[in-house]
């Protein structure tokens, strides 16, 4: 293996600082280097490969503030053996970290425009760094619109932050759930139904979407119907990533490796591949 390959495939040791329960199955972990190394800065939308020793390695998007690079924050949904092992770490435990890898949300392309964030489920986690960025550089952007859908009220992430963000001037935060109980007095309906509650300025809007692929396709239809251009729509794709750096080919999607050429793509790039079967 070349020196470069060795470097990108070698984890640094990192210590878990805190594990916060967000919902019944989703946790946020804070991690910092165990041996005092400086962490590589990350851009919103990038991911790290996290290694739970003896269990497995996982690609996890960074959900923290890019301007607080001294610690890495990940929001992880416990859905399988490796993610369960990861969220079961205790403060002080050591895990392996590689990266950051992948493309980032092009926040610079949205300067002087409205930023529209459409997230579904755990998809809000990779978009949270964009929200942190826009809020830190508020004058660089016009409106911040966040449309967030989850399965039920108990699945909503970052509820306290959503409420805080909604109080920031020129910021609109709308949440919805697919299934609401009687105690839930918020919006009920899929995330696309929130589009009726916002007035978009299509030529002045850059949209960032993350969630299940079907949900993203429906959201794109809404955006196209309202006149947002394909090169102003960005989405984060998910495929079975293994190496994280384009060596293994597990995450191939058409001509792209999602780990290296993505996970963030413009809709312009993805359009030929989104509706195609068996890809």
């Amino acid at each position: 293996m070349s020196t470069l390959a060795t470097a990108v495939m070698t984890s640094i040791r990192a210590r878990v600082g805190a594990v916060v329960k967000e919902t019944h199955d989703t946790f946020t972990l804070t991690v910092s280097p165990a041996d005092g190394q400086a962490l590589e800065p990350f851009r919103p939308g990038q991911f790290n490969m996290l290694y739970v020793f003896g269990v497995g390695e996982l690609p996890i998007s960074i959900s923290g503030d890019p301007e607080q690079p001294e610690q890495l924050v990940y929001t992880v949904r416990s859905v399988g053996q490796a993610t369960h092992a990861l969220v079961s770490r205790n403060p002080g435990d050591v895990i392996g970290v590689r990266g950051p890898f992948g493309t980032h949300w092009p926040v610079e392309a949205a300067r002087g425009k409205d930023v529209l964030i459409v997230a579904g489920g755990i998809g809000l986690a990779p978009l949270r760094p964009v929200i942190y960025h826009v809020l830190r550089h508020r004058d660089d952007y016009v409106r911040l619109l966040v449309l967030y859908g989850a399965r039920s009220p108990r699945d909503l992430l970052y509820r306290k932050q959503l409420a805080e963000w909604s109080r920031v001037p020129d910021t609109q935060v709308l949440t919805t759930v697919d299934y609401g109980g009687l105690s839930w007095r918020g919006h009920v309906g899929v995330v696309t139904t929130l589009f009726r509650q916002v007035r978009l300025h299509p030529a002045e809007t850059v949209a960032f979407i993350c969630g299940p692929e079907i949900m993203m396709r429906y959201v794109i239809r809404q955006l196209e119907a309202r006149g947002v251009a394909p090169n102003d729509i960005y989405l984060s794709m998910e495929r079975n990533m293994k190496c994280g750096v384009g060596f293994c080919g597990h995450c191939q999607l058409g001509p792209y490796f999602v780990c290296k050429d993505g996970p963030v793509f413009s809709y312009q790039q993805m359009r030929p591949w989104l509706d195609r079967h068996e890809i």
Partner: protein
Amino acid sequence: MQAKSLAEILQEHPFLEGFKPEHVQKMAELALEVQFGRDQIIFREGQESGLFFLILSGKIALEVSAPGRIFRVQTLEAGEELGWSSVLGEGGKHFQARSLETVRALAFEGSRLRQLCEQDPAFGYALMKRLLKVVAERLQATRLQLLDVYAPRAAKLI
């Protein structure tokens, strides 16, 4: 400040965006401004309610009752419509509608709207096009809801 006329209020409602002024005027002549307090049942499932509403403010939940529990399947807010089936005039309501907060709306007798559609086919076509759009959007949203896209893969049936 002078209060807005019903025609002016209607003109601003997204449902009537692009409607001809004379058609808006016809709607305004049938409109009745109504208000519901928080947690008021607007109509019940199965009830023969002939009213179609354009919501001006507040939030309404559509609910389905099952023995011992109620499912909240959708909420509707300002700029949306409630009771489209009353314009078709067939059967009772499929859902129960409950105001979650104080609601202001414009109400229309479905039978009067149907009469207008019969008398003025151009008006009828414009109204039906809009209703069809509402129904299509609700159908698509329901399909997406049925897919349960946020469920963990292991929990999915298909």
